[in-house]
């Protein structure tokens, strides 16, 4: 059982990282950014391409991962900002439905744009960037043995631990940024009342761009880590994961950052338990049925507040 919980927390940390971007964007402009999951996928493809294309990156060892994380953060963040500026900003005062559909179109564009460039087949993650290879020892028979930490009667491998720690650090940093800095205050102000914020001298466009940069960059980080851990990426992987991340954001209470983290971990745990009880092929059904049931009982999410709908 401990192992089930640990696995759930690990998967949940991915959901949480992606849910954060969803939740931030939703909180500030009340837009369900369907393309967010695809930015996660795009981040993974950028990481893979860097591992192949940058000469001598293999000699950096685990430092290679740091390099591709950095590249991926910059590129996915910029992509997010561009998407907002080109597709969402012109429609900011349009009916919600138009913006949502634009977001669906953007998601298609990213998915099939990536398919056009890298091809439809799942791509193997280059061997010089596999997290588990760095964090393992070679035993007497020459086979690689993953290092792991025992926790009660379960265990987490080092790579899982690294990713979990990374997610926690990123979330803590983000919470500090939103809560303590001037830019963070601007974001919260816009989320409360965009017009009043702009009257008080907050640069609304710049702040929204910043939100998109940060949200997309976190999705990019999650994408690289997903690739480095699971060693295989496909152009459609962002669809389901994005859907789950949104589910997580809703469970936690959309627009609330702590809610997104909590929701991500909750969803990971639920899925992990669902898999043990019902079998792996039903785990997505389990997650979505839970979402529907949850919404009937507590529509605002665990930490959410009632939000008035913008028309």
């Amino acid at each position, binding site marked *: 059982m401990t192992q089930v919980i640990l696995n759930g927390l690990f998967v949940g940390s991915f959901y949480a990282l992606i849910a954060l971007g969803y939740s931030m964007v939703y909180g500030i402009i009340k837009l369900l950014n369907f393309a967010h999951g695809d930015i996660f996928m795009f981040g993974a493809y950028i990481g893979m391409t860097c591992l192949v294309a940058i000469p001598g990156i293999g000699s950096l060892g685990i430092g290679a991962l740091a390099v591709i994380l950095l590249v991926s953060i910059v590129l996915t963040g910029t992509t997010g900002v561009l998407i907002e500026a080109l597709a969402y900003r012109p429609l900011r005062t349009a009916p919600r439905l138009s913006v949502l559909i634009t977001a*669906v179109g953007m998601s298609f564009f990213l998915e099939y744009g990536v398919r056009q460039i890298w091809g439809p087949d799942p791509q193997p993650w280059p061997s010089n960037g596999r997290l588990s290879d760095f964090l393992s020892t070679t035993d007497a028979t020459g086979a690689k043995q993953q290092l792991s930490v025992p926790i009660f009667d379960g265990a987490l491998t080092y790579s899982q631990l690294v990713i979990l720690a990374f997610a926690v650090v990123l979330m803590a940093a983000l919470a500090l940024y939103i809560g303590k800095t001037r830019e963070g205050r601007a974001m919260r102000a816009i989320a409360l009342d965009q017009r009043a914020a702009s009257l008080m001298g907050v640069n609304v466009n710049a702040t929204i761009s910043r939100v998109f940069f940060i949200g997309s960059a976190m999705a990019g980080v999650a994408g690289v880590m997903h690739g480095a851990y699971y060693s295989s990426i496909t152009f459609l992987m962002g669809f389901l994961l994005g859907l789950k991340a949104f589910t997580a954001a809703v469970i936690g209470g959309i627009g609330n950052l702590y809610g997104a983290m909590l929701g991500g971990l909750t969803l990971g745990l639920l899925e992990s338990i669902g898999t043990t009880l019902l079998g792996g092929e039903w785990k997505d059904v389990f997650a979505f049925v839970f979402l529907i049931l949850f919404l009937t009982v507590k529509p605002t999410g665990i930490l959410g507040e009632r939000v008035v709908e913008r028309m």
Partner: protein
Amino acid sequence: MPIDAKTNLLLPPTTGQARAKAKFSWTSDHGILRILGIVGIVFVFALPLINSGNYTIQLGTQALIYILLALGLNVVVGYAGLLDLGYVAFFAVGAYTSGILTTRLGWPMWATIPAVILMCVIAGIVIGGPTLRLRSDYLAIVTLGFGEIIRIVAQNWEPVTGGPSGIFGIPSWSFGGFTLNKIQLYYFCAVVVLLLGCFGIPRLAKGKLGRAWKAVRDDEDAAEAMGINTYTTKITAYIIGAVWAGLAGQLQASFISVVTPSSFVFLQSALVLMAVVIGGMGSVPGVILGAIIITLGPELLRDVWENRYLAFGILLLVVMLARPKGLWPSTSVLPWSRDKRDHDAKVETPAKSHDYDPQEEVPS
């Protein structure tokens, strides 16, 4: 045209009545629309006579089924303003219900119609019931999740749904001793259902319920203040859309005689939504145009470009940004005619209630 909230403005009823009284002319916008409608109907009936090849008829039937789906989704998205991203789930419910009942229990195809309707109503209530009270984005994501649930259940519940290989050998329609088995007959069957939809759905939209849908779409709070039960109104739209899709699914199942989970992926829902959006939400001729584009587009592009869905994504973005009301908006009679509501655009407070919509006034 620049987008702003004011483009939602609706004509004051007096203008509509005045227009209805005006003398009818074949060269006016409404006259041209009527001519287009007649030409369309004649063409649809004449197509099997012009070219009765299997490919043409199959493609034609496929286009008709897409038009049916798009018309149903138009009720949900276009009239009631509920974004449904898993619409194909109801299509699947209809197809599987009729497929399972005919192949496993030996029911005749016509007898499964009530079962299909019942299942779709249940599915609509299960999904719409809890979520229609909530914010509209939740509905979008829950319907998306529901679409996935139905597909995964169909794929994994082997004893009932046949798993990944699906259900095959679905019989045709038979009434007493007479069986529809020629592919052309299916085509005409689809045409009849389509005409029913083309004339019935605008009538529905023009009635009390339809006006309530549009009121809820334009401003839920104002509609509620006017005494409309917004929840019932929304769930009615949702269920009507669900049943319509279910019947289209039944037609599809009996037409190709196979149902497999792979025909009900998210892409299908997205395509139908695209038909509605590209054509023009709430506009019946627009939706038909959109459905024709999405069925024939990939067929025409098939040889040219492998990755046609990329083109679709770009098309969706361009249409949304350049022509946010679609190619054939519900606010103008013909795609190129002036927006009927432009002259009102200077009014500051949006008028919310209306009982006139140009596209409803003429048969399409």
